[in-house]
């Protein structure tokens, strides 16, 4: 599955989860996602509890995530916890640690138990 499709599915799962919608109600953020090997750029936006995603660069972001495309796909499809490549140095983030923790929790709540 292509990274863009993976992100779309991630967003749909998130929006379908009432706990996540409630949790993200006051979390308004723009996240830039950069695949370092292919040069592809995507974005995820969180506003009023709903997430949306798309391809291309948006001006200004609160959080920037960089990794190889397959690592990003693995994270956003639930095959890998973000912490694993992050603690390995394969996933680099630029932005607030609170926002990073929030993303980690989102993946945890979608695929966690």
């Amino acid at each position: 599955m292509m990274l863009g499709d993976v992100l779309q599915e991630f967003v749909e799962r998130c929006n379908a989860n009432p706990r996540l919608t409630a949790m993200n109600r006051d979390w308004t953020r723009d996240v830039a996602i950069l695949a370092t090997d292919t040069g592809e750029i995507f974005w995820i936006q969180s506003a009023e509890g709903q997430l949306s995603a798309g391809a291309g660069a948006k001006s200004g972001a609160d959080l920037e995530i960089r990794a190889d495309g397959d690592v990003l796909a693995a994270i956003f499809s639930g095959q890998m916890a973000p912490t694993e490549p992050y603690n390995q140095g394969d996933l680099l983030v630029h932005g607030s640690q609170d926002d990073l923790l929030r993303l980690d929790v989102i993946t945890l709540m979608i695929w966690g138990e």
Partner: protein
Amino acid sequence: MAQRALTKVLPLRTAVSTSAGLASAAVNFLATVDVAMYVGGRSAWLAILVAGALIVLTASNFSELNGLFPSAAAIRVWTRRGLNDRLSLAASLVYATTVVFVIAADAFVLAHVFQAAIPAVPGILWVVVILGVTALFNLRGVRVAGLVQDTNAFVLLGTLSVISIMVIANGPAMPVASLFHLGPRWIQGVALGVFIFVGFEWVSPLAEEFQDARAIPRGMYMALGLIAMAFGLFALAVADVFPNPTSLASSLVPQLVVGQRALGPWGFWWMAGVTLTTAMTTFNGGLVSASRFVYALARERSLPRSWARLNARLVPARALLGLTALALVLALMVYATKQYTLLIDAGAGVESLMYALTTILIIQLRRREPNRPRPYRAFGYPVLPVVVGLVFVGLATGALTTPTTPAGTPWALIFVLGLTAAATIYVMFGLPRKRRASKRPTRSLGKVDKSPKA
């Protein structure tokens, strides 16, 4: 791929204040007294300055590693890339415990300050209350405002400099020769002087929040300069207030005595207040960073899964409570035995070994990943980092083998060896079993207790 502009970034001021603030624990007052005792009094300022100069060279190593992998997981990532997963985990676990050492040592200082200020209430009661309140605030997701954290470091270092200058200016002139007298235990004095700067590098995990990659190196260097100046002056003031080095051993509140000498009761209470806010920021900063670190290790299945549990406010509650309990137990033990020097020696030893490790890491990573962008390169590579690494191995040996009891037993060495052995046994034998047991077809790395509140 070019760096994109982010909407929110931290300023250089925060790099300076975070680095200075995390290094400036309340126990540094006692560490300064210890340095003065080792060097024989008046040349303590020089020992602190030499320790600071060596630390600057280590900061250069940290800066290269930081630029290479700017990550909140800092030491975990660097050691994993430069060495291997097992060594990285063992080193990270031992390193993270120094945070607990510093919290416990600060608790000891806080207890004695309050005991001196309000003798009717047992000092340890204040420690239990303040540590408990800090943990409770953290559990509720209430953070000490960045401005408070930012301001405290500058208030502490500024106050210390001004009050020390007042004492020095009003005291008798010191013979110049005594300011440069190097006694037989001067090197051990330098080794303990390292402790005063311990924690300056804990600004590294904030690397992701700065737009400019040079902010962390600049912030660390400026913070080190401020710390060296403030505590160097404090060492001179201490030598002025306690001309006989042997009398230093009986003072557990030197900052209050110096404050009183400079400004009378106002100085006493001002320094008591500064000690309180410093200890609180140490408790807060230490618990926040260490609990997040434990959370991250639990999420990658290196520690029990239950430690990755978050409460409704997205705080790693079990990790936070566990660390608070550990710090409290250690603080009570130190309070009962008065063996705070054990924590200072152990902290200085562990940190010195970590500083030596940064030399190995920059050499290894230049070999393994020569083409990875390095926005900052260590000074004088490879000669200077190697020399600094060897010096820090020597300083670690000096700090850890310093006798902490009249019987001459180096308890700091025994304590750190025990800790390292426990971490190594866990990584070699406990962890593989745990990882095998936790392998499941679907990922299951943590729990959220209940629906987070909006």
